[in-house]
């Protein structure tokens, strides 16, 4: 019985919605005002976040895109390089699913390109879902332990979950706070 319950609670996690949920482009762009570091005033969280965040299939697809789109080039396997580290719990532009999607969609200063029109919204959500596993901000049993590449990271399945915080680089303090 307990087994059944544990398994039941896992249904969303296992669904494989191959089409994603088609979204109008504007839906992602709704939060353009957030070009401020530290996230500005974040509105209520986008309801789609949950569907992608807790879903193993979307996370796996996001991982594939992360490697294929060469995110590794700047962010490494989450450890950071030219771009900021993604496996810590510090987020300059907000660590929520919709905030990460906004960063991917719009690009950010100092090198992060805008992927609008290059990736579909579904793919951006998948990427965001994957990126959040790097910092173990999702249930550990949804994340893959590693990819079939040279893996330099600690398995997300073993990491301690860290609540995301918005870091504040000294130069720019969000006025909204």
């Amino acid at each position, binding site marked *: 019985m307990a087994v059944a319950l544990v398994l039941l609670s896992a249904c969303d996690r296992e669904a494989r919605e191959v089409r994603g949920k088609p979204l109008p482009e504007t839906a992602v762009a709704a939060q353009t005002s957030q070009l401020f570091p530290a996230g500005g005033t974040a509105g209520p969280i986008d309801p789609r976040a949950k569907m992608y965040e807790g879903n193993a299939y979307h996370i796996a697809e996001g991982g594939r895109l992360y490697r294929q789109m060469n995110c590794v080039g700047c962010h490494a396997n989450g450890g950071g390089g030219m771009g900021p580290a993604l496996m810590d719990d510090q987020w300059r532009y907000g660590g929520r699913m919709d905030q990460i999607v906004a960063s991917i969609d719009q690009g950010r200063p100092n090198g992060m390109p805008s992927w609008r029109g290059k990736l579909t919204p579904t793919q951006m959500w998948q990427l965001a879902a994957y990126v959040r596993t790097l910092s173990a901000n999702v249930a550990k049993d949804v994340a893959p332990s*590693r990819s079939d590449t040279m*893996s330099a990271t*600690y*398995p997300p399945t073993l990491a301690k979950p860290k609540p995301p915080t918005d870091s504040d680089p000294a130069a720019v303090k969000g006025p909204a706070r």
Partner: protein
Amino acid sequence: MSAPYRFTRDLAELPTHAFGNRSLTWWGVILFMLMEGSGFALAGAAYFILKSHQGTWPPAPLQPPGLLAGTLFTLLILASEIPNTIVKKKAEAEEIAPVRLLLPIMAAIGGLLLVIRAFEFDSLNVMWTDNPYGSIVWALLVLHTTHILTDWFDTVVLTVLMFTQHGPTGKRFVDVSENSLYWRFVWLAWLPIYLLIYWVPRW
């Protein structure tokens, strides 16, 4: 069941317990050792298959594991065969006093071995996530630790039992004897694993 019978022999005189291959417990232990043994053998085979894909073993720039803890462990587990043999002999002679004396010692040795084992993990110089080398040496060590742990637990339970009214009975002496037999397997299985973990990387 009204078929008539031809009575050929009365078995009442047979003993109710026996040691070695005359007892079912012995066979149980032997079969368990066969299962575990083939598991270890296959893990060893996997070790060499994974090794065959690497230029150096351990893969550069890793260092082979430190020798101190593993060697200490090996010496202690070899030395433990002395009390182990004695306790087995005494059990088969059905003498309760020496068994009650030696079993706690065996349990203590097991506990000490587990402590040293913790330092062994520390001396491997590699994590299981690093590469297949790390994965297989951790797997070997974890597999063997499981054996130490189960036999240690078994010994503790048996030690307690020997001090109860169930202690000085034939059946319990058989259990003690077979527990000693299993301990022999635990250290015999360790020797090749010791070589795989500590010495093959040094070749």
